[in-house]
């Protein structure tokens, strides 16, 4: 059987790629949860932990969900005056072998422009994109508005 040079090259690249670049396939998402919303005019918040089981850093470059037009990663920081503000993170790096926790009081997913209310007991699907082109989908349970974590 004849294989064209182009196909051979493509095949070589395909098989070579995974070991050369650690990526999204090495990330495990755990303990995802979010808070119920009042209607759709207020932004929602969601949390989770991202575990990088690989040997290379992994970078989160994007998020998407049909629940919100603009899901983004925010960090809450409190300055020495006691004023808290949120900063938009365009990228989030997860160092090799590390866990990054998005949890109340710090990093969180901010769900801007909700397309429907977040109802306690329901869930929504969220896709996390990585710099290597990989992405993973997670089902995020919606807990009560006073919830403090993935479970009580």
């Amino acid at each position: 059987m004849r294989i064209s040079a182009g196909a051979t090259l493509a095949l070589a690249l395909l098989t070579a790629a995974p070991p050369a670049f650690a990526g999204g396939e090495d990330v495990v998402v755990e303990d995802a949860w979010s808070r119920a919303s009042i209607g759709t005019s207020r932004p929602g918040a969601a949390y989770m932990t991202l575990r990088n089981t690989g040997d290379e850093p992994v970078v989160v470059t994007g998020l998407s969900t049909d629940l919100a037009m603009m899901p983004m990663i925010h960090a809450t920081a409190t300055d020495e005056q006691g004023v808290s503000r949120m900063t938009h993170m365009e990228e989030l790096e997860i160092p090799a072998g590390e866990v990054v926790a998005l949890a109340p009081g710090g990093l969180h997913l901010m769900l801007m422009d909700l397309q429907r209310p977040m109802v306690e007991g329901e869930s929504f699907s969220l896709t996390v994109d990585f710099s290597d082109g990989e992405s993973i989908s997670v089902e995020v349970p919606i807990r009560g508005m006073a919830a403090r974590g993935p479970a009580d």
Partner: protein
Amino acid sequence: MQRRRFLIYGVAGIGAIAATLGIGWWQVDGPGADAQVGKRPLPLSEMSFRLTDHEGKPVGPQTLLGRASLIFFGFTYCPEVCPTTLSDISVWLDWLGEEATDLNVVLITVDPERDTVEALAEYVGYFHPAIRGWTGTTLQVDQATRDFRVRYEKMPMEGGGYTMNHTSGVFLFDADGRHVSIIDYHEPREFALPKIRRAMDEETKGAT
């Protein structure tokens, strides 16, 4: 929006947050308090704000006298800091049990434009029943933030709308309206509860 890459090295990140909280404590309650004395809230007896509670009743600093108080500023369109603070407070109150009835617990909005009496009533209804919501006109809210030495600023958000940056600590006053301490944002329960107890004990001391 500036491009920013966020690196987190687990333990180091937690250490930095702990250090930030530590600095906050040092300036508010600790040995640095003298230098920051102008930043502390006035005693309730020297405050002059007038607001409306989430049931439409007029309220002011004297509403709070006679019981220890836990006062914090926020807004109902706040997706992160305020629900976190409110759920923390709800847990502290659950933990106090019956004693919680001896406390005033009030969220004062920094966003009167959107936080009407009705909006506040619905919002506080999701948390511990002891939590009250106070709002007013922009001028009235400004007066309250001056009395409490609270800072806030309106920030436009990407994709429209705005959010508010604001002082996120919880102020504790004793029954006589003296400022006792501040619980920093998301401070663990083991630090928060003794502070609340201290504010409530001042009350007992005053009564005996």
